[in-house]
């Protein structure tokens, strides 16, 4: 009963319970900061880039279970990807990797995508 009726998929709960890549990167190559306190979700995403490849990613998030799980998932997905590949990661891809999100929580996956794009933008601006 419990699994069928819980708000989140098992995968979301797994990432919520054991979030990957929590924390900050010292001297990051890019930082993304998105969200606002009114909505109750704030994400910070740090990336380390080597040779146009994202070699490390970490996050800090204030938010609900879905916000934490999508932050964790997007940092996992982005590691080892080139900047161009990383820019292709959509919010839907993040949600699908988590076996879906409740419709009302899809905005969390949007936030994860935006955090990633904002970190990449920051990197690109700095490396100009």
């Amino acid at each position: 009963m419990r699994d069928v009726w819980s708000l989140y998929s098992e995968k979301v709960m797994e990432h919520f319970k054991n979030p990957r890549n929590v924390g900050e990167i010292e001297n990051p190559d890019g930082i993304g900061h998105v969200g606002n306190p009114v909505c109750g979700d704030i994400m910070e995403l740090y990336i380390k880039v080597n040779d146009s490849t994202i070699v490390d990613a970490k996050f800090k998030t204030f938010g609900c279970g879905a916000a934490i799980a999508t932050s964790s998932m997007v940092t996992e997905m982005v590691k080892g990807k080139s900047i161009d590949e990383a820019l292709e990661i959509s919010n839907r891809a993040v949600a699908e990797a988590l076996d879906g999100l409740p419709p009302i929580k899809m905005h969390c996956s949007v936030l994860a995508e935006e955090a990633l794009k904002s970190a990449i933008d920051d990197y690109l601006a700095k490396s100009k």
Partner: protein
Amino acid sequence: MRRIYLDYAATTPTHPEVVKAMLPYFTDIFGNPSSIYSYGQEAKGAIEEARVKVADLIGARGEEIVFTSGGTEADNFALKGVAFANESKGNHIITSPIEHHAVIETCRFLERRGFRITYLPVDEYGGIDPGDVKKAITDKTLLISVMQANNEMGTIEPIAEIGRIAREAGIYFHTDAVQTVGHIPVDVNELEVDLLSMSAHKLYGPKGVGVLYIKKGTKLVPFMHGGEQEKKRRASTENVPGIVGLGKAVELAQQDMGEEAERLTYLRDRLIKGLLERIDHSRLNGHPRKKRLPNNVNVSVDYVEGESMLLNLDLEGICASTGSACSSASLEPSHVLLALGLSPEQAHGSLRFSLGKWTSEEEIERVLEVLPRVIAKLRAMSPLLKSQK
């Protein structure tokens, strides 16, 4: 894992004795109370017995009790009923910004229909100053509606004082007493209210049944049109098992209300004290002591969001609730906590524990042991904490 239920303000489990009292009315005594054969009349008798019990509990007369489908219907009935029946006399309604959605949203509906609504100011604890009510009254004021105690942060409002002002001014006065009836003494004469809403499932009765007390002589339009049930004020075949259950719940509440309130107040204060001591950067929402429901604890914890706290508590078997609304369409946090002047972050970081009949000291200790751990884990990943350093 043993489940620790601390969300009694959301709903209570139905008391086993209430279930027992209800059962025959699903089977043996299933008749329609409007039918004249004995099956029907027995059911009718049971409803009238419940009506007297409810009336006794709140100091009313049986004929002033109208059964509804719950607290929300009672609130809708009171507000729309009075507004539409008295339109010729005025168009102004006074209420508070911390009412339950059943009142707030009904007021918004009436606003769209041309009524004017004044939302009273509240102090830092959510308390209303009766003086402000007096000031808000105009010659167009039809109705004042102020809840007796707030469901989120437990503050008890000065209903008797507001009642006196309303009666002197000759204005109808409604109170939403969903959180108070059966928990603290409620007497419609002392409170000088004309209308009072209550709900069975907040006092160990079943869901789907409530009451609107309507003082004799109050002019309001019927809530539902149809048959002659409830003296034509609320048509529809009565929810006989539900009403019988409410009667039994009221009877049980009357027996141990004082003792239970004392026991819960002790546990409440223990939980409040423990949480504030063990969690830095936390604060109590609502009135600190005297003007607070015996079973309500509401704290805001800085740097963390409510739903993520709830999920972690749920993993440890603890059920609570939050004023964060990450899963509601608006995403905006509790209107009640914002009205107290909390920032959106603080409102999103709120947790409510509401205690009840089966809450033990051991359960309180368990929460005090688990919650600081949960918060430490979430704070370690909070971007807000870092920016505060």
